């Protein structure tokens, strides 16, 4: 709204009326009557010139209802005066863009527009825009002036034409170029399907992701879902860009529906799975996962996922109950000696097994017994042994090589006992000796890292073949008895003698080496 100073200037000049309609519109704030009626003097001037031409007594009654006048200073559109004069009661639209866009009444505005010059046609002028006014009077009052109406129609057509001229569809290539280079653009004028297709094709050619997305969003808003899907199906890049956009905007529901419609069921299910993982509440999470497995993963092609996620649900339940028990229990002395690093909830399966091997080794038969894991999750021998050996070593319980196969048999109660017994029988019978199925070098490394005593390491070292490797490993871990044994096995007399010099005389290894040197058969 123009300042009152400007208004003064304007109305000061307006002894002579504004020359043209355009002018009238440009000064869109001009006919604000508020300032005038407040100060009064311009109002007088105004009414002087208008009064003789204007007599509409009926209008007064219809327009000025008491509530309007009482709110006259508040409302932006309506400003009235309490004086008796008609003109004082004329409520004007200040013709700001906001009131036009509200589009309350077309007719009065049209009337306003039809005026060629304010001064000449002032006598015919009906102030626009108040609803009550328009309903009550104007239409009937103007019905006679068909010429005027014609003029209205003509001008409104012209206006529309000029509007669409400024928003006329530029060539598709130019529009896409503008979008790619960050210039202003408008898409609403591409209304035909072929236009849209061309637009999308041009955006894809430009391989500008942001533009492709903008065009696709426009297409989604203006095309039926079926047609929109057709577009996405015809171009993998378009589909991927649009899905990426939906994910970025976190519109997952729509993304899932779209994936389903495009026949990408695996991705749809995984997107749902991703959302399930974000749930923190245990009960809600498992419930959501259960619905997922029963609905989205029912297709036979997705059985692998179904098995895995069912395992996960089971594991989560198990972890929850283990965690609840362990956070309460103070009886288990291990928790004092080896405080829990963190809750076991939502940890990987093997970490949970490791945890249970540490803290719940003796709870056989319960849901947290390591053996229960093996059967419940179909663990391989390797997975089970590694987790148990590492977990037990953490609490300084080391297995000797010959004990490893028994882990697979005796500790497994219940139905699977026989099966795993058979398995371990196979694995041990293959080697002849009780040779563990785990690689010895890595087993040694793990045990050494868990500070296993030398006797345990020596037991494993004695199984290492070839003997050169055994010697190297024994030296690396500094297991003296094993070094001596390896040297004896290698029949390396000189080496053994040299090694003896490093050993403190009288130590067990020294005695052993000495005995070997005396009795052994050397080359």
């Amino acid at each position, binding site marked *: 709204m123009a300042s009152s100073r400007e208004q003064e200037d304007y109305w000061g000049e307006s002894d002579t009326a504004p020359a043209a309609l355009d002018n009238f519109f440009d000064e869109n704030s001009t006919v604000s009557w508020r300032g005038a009626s407040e100060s009064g003097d311009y109002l007088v001037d105004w009414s002087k010139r208008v009064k003789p031409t204007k007599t509409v007594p009926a209008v007064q009654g219809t327009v000025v209802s008491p509530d309007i006048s009482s709110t006259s200073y508040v409302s932006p559109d309506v400003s009235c005066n309490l004086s008796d004069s008609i003109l004082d009661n004329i409520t004007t639209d200040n013709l700001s863009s906001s009131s036009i866009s509200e589009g309350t009444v077309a007719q009065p505005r049209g009337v306003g527009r039809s005026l060629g010059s304010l001064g000449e046609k002032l006598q015919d002028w009906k102030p626009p825009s108040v609803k009550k006014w328009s309903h009550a009077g104007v239409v009937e009052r103007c019905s006679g002036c068909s010429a005027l109406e014609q003029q209205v129609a003509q001008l409104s057509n012209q206006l529309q034409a000029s509007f669409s001229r400024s928003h006329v569809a530029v060539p598709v290539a130019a529009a896409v170029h503008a979008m790619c280079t960050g210039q202003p653009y408008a898409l609403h004028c591409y209304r035909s399907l072929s236009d849209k297709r061309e637009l999308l094709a041009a955006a894809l050619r430009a391989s*500008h992701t*942001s533009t492709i997305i903008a065009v696709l*969003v426009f297409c989604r808003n203006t095309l039926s879902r079926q047609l929109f899907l057709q577009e996405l199906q015809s171009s*993998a*890049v378009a589909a991927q860009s649009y899905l990426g956009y939906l994910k970025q905007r976190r519109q997952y529901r729509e993304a899932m529906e779209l994936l389903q419609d495009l026949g990408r069921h695996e991705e749809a299910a*995984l997107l749902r799975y991703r959302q399930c993982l974000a749930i923190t509440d245990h009960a809600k999470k498992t419930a959501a996962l259960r619905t997922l497995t029963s609905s989205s993963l029912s297709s036979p*092609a997705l059985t*692998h996922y179904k098995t895995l996620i069912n395992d996960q649900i089971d594991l989560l339940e198990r972890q929850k109950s283990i965690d609840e028990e362990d956070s309460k229990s103070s009886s288990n002395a291990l928790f004092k000696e080896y405080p829990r690093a963190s809750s076991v909830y939502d940890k990987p399966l093997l970490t949970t097994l490791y945890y249970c091997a540490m803290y719940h080794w003796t709870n056989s038969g319960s849901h947290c017994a390591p053996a229960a894991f093996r059967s419940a999750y179909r663990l391989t021998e390797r997975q089970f042994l590694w987790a148990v050996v590492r977990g037990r070593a953490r609490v300084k319980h080391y297995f000797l090589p010959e004990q490893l196969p028994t882990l697979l048999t005796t500790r497994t109660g219940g139905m699977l006992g026989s099966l795993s017994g058979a398995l371990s029988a196979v694995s041990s019978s293959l080697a002849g000796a009780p040779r563990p199925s785990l690689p010895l070098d890595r087993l040694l490394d793990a045990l050494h890292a868990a500070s296993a005593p030398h006797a345990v390491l020596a037991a494993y070292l004695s199984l290492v073949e070839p003997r050169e490797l055994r010697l190297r490993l024994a030296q690396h871990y500094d297991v003296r008895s094993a070094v001596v044994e390896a040297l004896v096995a290698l029949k390396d007399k000189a080496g053994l003698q040299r090694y003896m010099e490093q050993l403190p005389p009288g130590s067990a290894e020294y005695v052993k080496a000495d005995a070997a040197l005396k009795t052994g058969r050397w080359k």
Partner: protein
Amino acid sequence: MQHPPYRVMSGMSGHCDKIVSGVDVWMLRELGCRSLVCCLEELPGKKDLIIDASLMKFLDRLSQAATLREHDVEKIFRLEQVPPSGQCAQRMYMVRSIPDSVKFIAEHLNHHQQELKQEQLQYQQKSQNQQQSHRVPISRILVVCVPSITYSVECQLEEEGLAGGGLVSLHSFCPGFVPLDDDLLTLEMPNFFRDAFVEGDFSSCAGIGQSLHLLCSLFGAPQRLLSHGRAAHAVITSFQRLRSDIDESHHSTKTKSQIGHLFILDRDADLVTPLLTQLTYEGSIDEHYGIHAGVVELPENLNPDANKPSASKIMLNSKDSIFASVRHKHFAGVAGVLVRRAKEIQTRKEESKKMTPAQMKEFVAFDLKQLQAQQNSISLHLSICEAITKATRRDFDVQLTTEHGLVTGATAASEAKTYFEDCCARQLPLSSCLRLLCLLSLTQSNGLSLKEYESLTSQLVAACGHKHILTLFDLRQVGLLNVSDSASMDQPQSSAMRGLRQAASNLMSKGQFAAWRSLTKFLKLIPDAEELIDLHNPSHLSYVFNGAYTPAIVQLVSQCLTDGLQSISDALKLIPGSTTSFGWSGDATLLPPVVVVLVCGGVTFAELAAFRLLGLRTGKRIIVATTGTTSGNKLMNSIANGS
């Protein structure tokens, strides 16, 4: 708009020690710094600066905090969900163009306005108290999107009710390439690989194209160009769009071309290289400690400054002559070289004892400080060597044998599978397990069978967590994990099983899985078993992987430079994406000897070492530009974390 004079620029180019072949890459830094200053002056007056965490390292390479202060930055914050505690009425946010950043900003603004309201209430309640409100209403927020404003950001801003209105406005800032070294330029887009090759979002390519355009405005347009790949295509389209716009507006001055060749390739042209363990010195540092934007963060015990026991950040580049001499060497030879250098320095120092006073004066003035610095550097690098050797797992040789055996075909798949199962059962880090699994699947002529895939992945998931079901799917999308779909050809999932990469590939046939094997034949990536590869005085590019494999991207460039474009056309057909090329007719000897290789999606240090050797062999200066240095671990983690 008036910009204040650039006060910071003097001494900036002091960074550059040598200008080789006329192309001074350090000018790019100056240019980037200037555009940063322009960007800061878009919001004149005092302001707080809030920076996206992933942009911090990049901005640090570009400029210093002092520069920011000189342009009225009061406080600098990291972009987080928690609102910054700044007191300025103006804020500048420097963010990646993703809707989430805008969400944070909207939250910050809401929080601020609520606080303001509360304070006003309190103020009204005890109006007699003259205490002034210490919180200033925010008058303007400038959101700087790096590298360009995207549609989704605009949408988000509009949805948050912040578009228009004058309070919040968007601005784009494309800083261009930042030099990390004389031959390495980076854009530091750590998420590019994931965005582009997993999500199929190539929106950052527009920024890369713009950066390339900036590069060419300095050093002239390349005379020969080869671009191949999906991201490369988006980059070159954006680049050419900008060039044609400029050509239209300025017909006149064209910079004299100093770049002979420009190659633009995608990371997914060679996915095997990042899966193999890097064996050069710099590569080993990256594998163990991670090098980010040219800086490594060493653990406490490796701090060269013994007085301050804390993690230390070391800038790794050729300015350190000792590091420059060993960075590309095979790790096994590094300690020897360092010890030799240390002895040389020792003798030079001892020589100084017999010097005349005049000689001594000269020695102290010129050489002593340098020798001292070199000695410090040697001791640092020796302790890094030692630490890496110590941290190397016992089964490292088994791992290397498996990796190289898979590539050359010497190791049977069953053997590798057993090793993989063992790695999973021992719960090795996720990235190690995934790298092995992917390598196994890529090197098999048909990928993994569905049965193998299901058994191996269920073991991986047991070791690393069920949520990695998503990671595995994404790996298949990228083409890092090949699963043969012969068993499930009729099933609806088969199209998804093939993944994005195959979908984008030129070859839609079932033979796709053999693509990598064929590529190794076309490009001769695997040296003959009889061929002797000298690891310590290398002449063969495959030295970076113990002579088992030549990085394909380097070999592509090498073959193209020596034998021309035609020699690699068969190989290009096996790589997804489309080719653009120009300028390949004509005499190659007349071209400037500078080659720029742009790798979209990251380049490994092993490849950088091979490129350096290629440069020495061909007598060309090879400048590698990339979205960031990468490694198998970084790729795997970026995929796993996004999942």
